[in-house]
């Protein structure tokens, strides 16, 4: 690896001023599972690496039934799916956290890092979009919010301006009779990059028979993860049946504009969007109903 300096500030203010001071040559380090590989392979360079794991706000995992979830940008995946409240309230998030790499990766890899790295195939991002998460960002001019659906701008590029740091992700409090799911397709059982990933969230009515609203998001089918607006809008008011999930899958396919590569052809990816949309909707309904029975 090319030489670089290392520092581990303990406050957001210090991290932001370090980023400004070393403008252009500083790299943020969370779990390091993307950035250390990229630095070692020479894909990126750094004069200084700023480890943000000692900043309390970036290690948050506060799950509250009224105010929602605040997830620190550098909180590792294993901690997230190890939290029973988060698994119950935000299962699409924990579905994704549980399959990012193997256990060794999950002990370190963060959702903030997964989002900032902005891979089109990043597993957490469709889940974050489906769950309507908002990114809280700190920079030289104070703090601002960016909806996760607008965070990635191109492969490997995000909406952070120079000197900005992702602090946390904020998730709305879970509404009654709502749930979510994330699934991806890979040719093996574990440890592979998604050919397609789909995250779905939905809320059912009192009776559990009708979908009140839904959000479907797709990964690995466009330069950035995308919100499937047409399918999501159409689902509102539809009965919670297999036929509805299948039709939503048909609509979600229209939001996919994939390329063909070694992982799969464009045609195959579009097909997978339909299948995974159908399955994640069914899973989310099953979970919402189970929660209703339990609660």
């Amino acid at each position, binding site marked *: *690896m*090319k*030489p*670089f*300096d*290392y520092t*581990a500030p303990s406050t957001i203010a210090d991290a932001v001023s370090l980023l400004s001071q070393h403008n252009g040559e500083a790299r943020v*380090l969370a*779990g*390091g*599972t993307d950035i*250390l*590989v990229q*630095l*070692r*392979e020479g894909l990126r360079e750094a004069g200084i*690496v700023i*480890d943000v*794991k000692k900043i309390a706000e970036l290690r948050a995992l506060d799950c509250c039934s009224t105010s929602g979830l605040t997830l620190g940008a550098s909180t590792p995946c*294993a901690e997230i799916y190890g939290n029973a409240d988060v698994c119950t309230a935000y299962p699409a998030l924990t579905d994704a956290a549980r399959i990012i*790499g*193997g*256990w*060794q*990766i999950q*002990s*370190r890899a963060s959702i903030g890092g997964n989002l900032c790295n902005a891979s089109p195939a990043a597993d957490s991002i469709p889940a974050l979009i489906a769950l309507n998460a908002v990114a809280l960002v700190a920079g030289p001019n104070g703090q601002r919010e960016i909806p996760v659906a607008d965070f990635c701008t191109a492969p490997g590029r995000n909406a952070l301006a120079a000197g900005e740091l992702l602090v946390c992700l904020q998730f709305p409090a879970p509404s009654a009779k709502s749930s979510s799911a994330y699934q991806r397709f890979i040719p093996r*059982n*574990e*440890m592979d990059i998604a050919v397609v990933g789909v995250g779905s969230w939905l809320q059912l009515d009192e009776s559990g028979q009708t979908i009140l609203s839904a959000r479907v998001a797709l990964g690995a089918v466009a330069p950035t993860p995308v919100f499937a607006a047409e399918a999501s809008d159409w689902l509102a008011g539809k009965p919670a049946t297999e036929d509805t999930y299948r039709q939503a899958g048909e609509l979600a396919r229209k939001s996919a504009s994939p390329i063909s590569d070694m992982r799969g052809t464009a045609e195959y990816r579009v097909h997978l969007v339909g299948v995974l949309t159908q399955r994640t909707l069914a899973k989310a309904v099953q979970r919402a109903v189970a929660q209703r029975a339990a609660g």
Partner: protein
Amino acid sequence: MTKKVQVSATVNGETVDFLCEPWQSLLDVLREELHLTGAKEGCNNGNCGACSVLLDGAPVNSCLVLAVEAEGAEITTVEGIAQNGQLHPLQQCFLEGAALQCGICTPGFLVTAKALLDQNPNPTEEQIRFELAGNLCRCTGYDKIIKAVLAAAKNLQEAN
């Protein structure tokens, strides 16, 4: 220019101080400075798990940890798994079950499997396969490894 950093950590139960470059990996320091050569460099990019160690109890790929990040941490390598000259039941079962051939992957499997049994003393075959998915083996075909972990879990439970 960067300068060397002094790091103080606990490695296999002993306090250890070392000097490292800020860009050096923990794997590099374990092997080259501390002469703990159990953790292996397979891929150096997080895919093979041969460099697995426990960092504050959690299995990590030491090739993807900076040595400077180990400040104040507790690290367990494969060298720290045997206690008082007694092989850990996992090590015993790997030997008895011929769960290794070339052996390059073995330290990583032992460390991750130990973390698994510490957390879940009675895992199913499926759970073992899932949690060990970050450890690759080019020789055994995995079956003997999985069987050795199941056997070690059984031995540990019978001993308790």
